[in-house]
């Protein structure tokens, strides 16, 4: 079922992304998830197919479109590509670029955004640190001003596409304690003192690389500062709203895929002389899955629509993320259960989706932080 906001244009976009994912991802997705990597050429392939630039202005090499188009495209990539890890790895620019577009200068947009949307460079966003993630205002990576440079010291972790990122939108402390002392710097690969200290092994999202990054006396030119010094916190918070909607959309996509796989399996698999879909206990399980999925899709679609209308949706985006990630956990767990022993096997798609699903109540702001956001904004 498509989102309620979708038009004929979204359907055409879906068809295009479906064709891309079926050709360039689906045949290799399983292997990439197992080996924990996908080839770099996929970025340029995606750029050429007009898939990488969806939601970005044409002036910087994007293909236009808004949040609704991004949601639809990423859903279709998951549904047709069958590899969530590849989709999120390929999409790491969706959190790395918006702060550059929103707060960067014209020169910075041309220097950083254009090559990423052309698929020539890979971008990542680095906020979380070993010492803290949810508590953004307490981040400890320091950037000391020294003439035309910032000297950056610190460590970032859980960074999607961090291993091969050519540019990292990095949150650093340029000022005093609290949220008033945070800035965003674009730190480029090859800058002395910037290293990938660890490639991290995860529960899910295997095809997407995740890194720990170290900055040791790393000298970053001042011209790589995004916006004003010490004004980074607001940029990070604004970025979170769309990131949470993207994550909710991924949950809807994963839930949809797990549900489809379960329905197919329940019809094919026979036990006690009939397809297991004939048993009421499974029919009701599938009905619950379909209902939870429809509810999460409806809320995600509504919040996206309100966001596009210009409403401030901070609280609603948090609600959508929680609703969708709860749905995704539930649906993927039920999907494994329906698949029985096969559902516990690595070659079964729902086994992988079940592992992929676990990140969503954590990444982009934990379930608990979402509730704190909601509680604060609702005023209780």
């Amino acid at each position, binding site marked *: 079922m498509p989102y309620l906001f979708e038009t004929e244009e979204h359907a*055409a*976009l879906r068809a*295009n992304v479906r064709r891309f994912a079926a050709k360039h991802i689906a045949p290799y997705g399983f292997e990439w998830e197992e080996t924990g990597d996908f080839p770099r050429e996929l970025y340029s392939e995606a750029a050429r*197919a007009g898939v990488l630039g969806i939601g970005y202005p044409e002036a910087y090499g994007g293909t236009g479109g808004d949040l609704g188009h991004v949601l639809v495209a990423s859903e279709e990539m998951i549904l047709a590509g069958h590899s969530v890890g590849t989709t999120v790895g390929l999409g790491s620019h969706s959190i790395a670029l918006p702060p550059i577009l929103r707060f960067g200068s014209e020169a910075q947009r041309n220097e950083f955004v254009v090559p990423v949307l052309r698929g020539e460079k890979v971008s990542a966003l680095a906020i979380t640190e070993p010492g803290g993630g949810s508590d953004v205002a307490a981040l400890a990576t320091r950037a000391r001003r020294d003439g035309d440079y910032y000297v950056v010291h610190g460590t970032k972790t859980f960074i999607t596409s961090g291993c091969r990122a050519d540019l990292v939108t990095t949150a650093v402390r340029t000022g005093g304690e609290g949220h008033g002392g945070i800035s965003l710097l674009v730190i480029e690969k090859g800058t002395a003192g910037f290293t990938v200290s660890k490639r991290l092994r995860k529960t899910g999202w295997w095809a997407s690389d995740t890194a720990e990054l170290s900055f040791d006396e790393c000298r970053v030119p001042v011209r790589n500062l995004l916006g004003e010094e010490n004004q980074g916190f607001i940029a990070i918070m604004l970025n979170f709203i769309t990131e949470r909607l993207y994550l909710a959309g991924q949950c809807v996509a994963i839930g949809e895929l797990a549900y489809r796989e379960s329905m197919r399996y329940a019809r094919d698999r026979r036990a006690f002389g009939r397809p297991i879909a004939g048993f009421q206990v499974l029919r009701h399980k599938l009905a619950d899955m379909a209902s939870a999925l429809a509810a999460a899709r409806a809320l995600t679609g509504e919040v996206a629509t309100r966001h596009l209308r210009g409403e401030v949706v901070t609280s609603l985006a948090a609600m959508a993320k929680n609703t969708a990630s709860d749905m995704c956990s539930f649906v993927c767990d039920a999907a494994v259960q329906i698949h029985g022993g096969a559902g516990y096997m690595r070659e079964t798609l729902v086994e992988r989706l079940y592992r992929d699903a676990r990140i969503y109540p954590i990444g982009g702001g934990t379930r608990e932080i979402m509730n704190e956001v909601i509680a604060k904004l609702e005023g209780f």
Partner: protein
Amino acid sequence: MKILVPLKRVADPDNANKIKVTAGKIETTGLEWKPNPFDEYAVETALRLTEDAATPKARKGEVVVVSFGPKEVDTTLRSALATGADKAIRIDTTDDAIDGDLLARALKALVEKEKPDLVLLGKQQVEGDSNQVGQLLAEYLGWPQATFAGSIVSEADKSLVVSREVDGGSLKVRVTLPAVVSVDLRIVNPKGVQSVFTKAGHNYPEGVRFAALMAIMAAKKKPLTEVKLADLVSDPTLKVKTGAAELPPSRKAGIKVKTVQELVAKLKTEAKVL
């Protein structure tokens, strides 16, 4: 050069198992539709012939796509416009009111109105596999034809050298325009098409091009006109009479063999393929 490309939507061949037949008729509700793959290759070929691959956005010719069918077929035409075609025409009818001969007769009338230099079409559509529209159309028009094109080289847009896919190899023919050419799968190879504008040796990405979102949006503004079938042909009589449709018998379960020897024995004695 002006190229007319007939394009048909077909039920998604990857979902053939979803097709249901009731009382001898195929149920079309709920089916997913796709452009006929060979027709997509024809659109791609037409675009390659009317552009300089270095600057594909600057069109150097005109590609008109035409489809027969109900209003929903507009979606198929719009997606062809999104990949780069310039203009679309839908001839209003339904699948059960047409056959290859009627299509060829209607296309002849359309060709006389549109006056293209070339009609490019898929060698066949994957539903009926009749493989006759191109040939009939060339006959009715009295134009030269080259079928199953695996590669095309334009000679100053006055004639085309077409490499035809035939048993045991390929056959090169030169057709003088205007002509009818039907295309095969290999035409969308990186060097399948050589236009007068594109540098020799240019490599296209394998396959049919993708439509970016901005092109999808722009496609809504491109002209799409509707024509009544009756305005093109006065006699809608079909030459092909459809009896009843039935599904192929479902596959029987296979057997398991224990040893390679047993397998070879069965291949020899039962399957008789060795």
